[in-house]
């Protein structure tokens, strides 16, 4: 655990802020840290800006993230990590689907892909226009961007999955990445499989240790640990998960069906 000061806070959307920390933390796209909010809790969070002044992009959701959103530059946070298996780019023309704050690991992935000469399309989805995350960032990186909003206030009025279906019908891609609500990722995997596009998805489960010993985040039926073997898994691994898209577990280990 290293405790560091918040260097800068950027308001990204109504409910999402990026916290740049006074810490140089080299990391690969899709890796995460355990972020300690002293006196509150510790949560696993995707790294949205790896390296110098490492950045975490966080949705205000529960008591801990609400507290985070009230914090100011100069306040102290604790960081463990980076942890986890990264998203690995092997395609030459990729498509990524980011739902809501799920864009946090997708944006650095796209920047890395394009810097390696990979052609990239990103489907950025949100409930409404003012919750769209990192549209400008991936556009600036040079990606083709397709926007979807549930209420039609920006881009296509549909879910990301509809846009993906259309895009995969129209264009040939050799790799797909996704991060967002589990139901969305479940559908993304199904659509990509139909079009024979190999996919990696970023899982979310309740974490305690982050280092592969507590067992809070294991997926049935193989017992793979989201914190260690994940959080990014390949479609061939995910297809064996009995709980993906069906249930998660709370801090007690009890199954909670979606």
């Amino acid at each position, binding site marked *: 655990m290293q405790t560091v000061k918040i260097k800068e806070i950027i308001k990204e959307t109504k409910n999402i802020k990026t916290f740049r920390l006074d810490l140089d933390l080299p990391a690969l796209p899709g890796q995460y840290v355990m972020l300690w909010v002293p006196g509150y809790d510790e949560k696993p969070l995707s790294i949205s800006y790896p390296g110098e002044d490492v950045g975490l992009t966080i949705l205000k959701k529960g008591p801990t993230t609400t507290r985070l959103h009230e914090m100011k530059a100069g306040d102290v946070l604790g960081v463990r990590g980076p942890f986890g298996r990264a998203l690995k780019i092997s395609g030459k023309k990729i498509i990524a689907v980011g739902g809501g704050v799920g864009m946090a690991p997708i944006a650095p992935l796209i920047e890395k892909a394009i810097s390696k000469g990979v052609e990239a399309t990103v489907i950025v989805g949100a409930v409404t226009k003012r919750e769209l995350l990192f549209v400008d960032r991936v556009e600036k990186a040079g990606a083709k961007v397709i926007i979807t909003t549930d209420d039609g206030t920006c881009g296509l009025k549909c879910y990301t999955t509809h846009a993906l279906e259309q895009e995969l019908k129209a264009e040939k891609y050799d790799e797909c990445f996704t991060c967002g609500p589990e139901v969305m990722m479940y559908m993304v995997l199904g659509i990509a499989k139909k079009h024979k596009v190999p996919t990696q998805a970023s899982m979310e489960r309740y974490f305690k240790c982050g280092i592969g010993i507590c067992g809070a985040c294991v997926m049935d039926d193989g017992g793979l640990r989201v914190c260690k073997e994940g959080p990014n898994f390949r479609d061939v691994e995910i297809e064996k998960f009995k709980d993906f898209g069906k249930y998660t577990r709370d801090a007690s280990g*009890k199954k909670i069906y979606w």
Partner: protein
Amino acid sequence: MLETEICGLKLDNPTVLASGILGNVGSSLRRCARQGAGALVTKSIGKHERQGHKNPTVIRVKEGYLNAVGLANQGIAEFGCEVATAKEGGVPVIGSVFGFSVREFVSVAATMEDYGVDAIELNLSCPNVGKAGAFFGTGEELTYEVVKAVKDSVSVPVIAKLTANTGDLVAIAKACERAECDGVTAINTLKAMKIDIKAGMPILGHKIGGLSGPSIKPVGVASVYEIVKETDLPVMGCGGVTTGEDAIEYLMAGASAVQIGVGVADRGISIFKKVSREIEEFMVENNYKSLKEIIGVAQG
């Protein structure tokens, strides 16, 4: 060559998954068996579901690992399917049980037995929840009472997991023996705290937790040595086993098997295979034919 026996359970090798590690989901327990664990101890299960303490619950410190998970578990009613999956691993499954009263210990242990576990481990040593765990295992009378009550209610072997956070560990072990306990596990984590000096507060959500890892191994080895010397109880050694050499120390102190916990963080789930292989290599080099020749050799 590595076969051993503890409380009538036959183990192919002496490496046992310690309670609290990868232990409240069946598929995770089964995976440890497939990675070479000779037996599995489940996460400690209680009568009711508990969410446990707030994070941070587990952190690495210079001296090892600190944890205060707070007996998080899904409750015994939800645990049957997890035991069934764990048993597919093909090695003995030991159900760890805690309670806030003697009656709770008895009731959870009885259900655990119904689920088909091969033995019960009584958590008399968790340092992180008041009125459970170490609340029972630091007094001779309460230890006797819990062990006796559970022994009277189940037919599978009963093992008591003890804490070195007590004035007289041998006296506690003797109380277990008087209550006809089948064996003991020694030791649990040692009460500990880490303060972050920049934040000016303890890091763990529960503030105080338990220390584990290599730094507590000498405490564990001494505890095993004394219990073996002073009682006739079979003992599982626990605390800081990361390598075959660590395991051999415990065996030489008199342990019949060793439990592995946070070593999983340092060497991966295959630590069970690795430690077994290292024990075997030591035995070949030093002309030991069976673990029986090693167990207790340091007692003199």
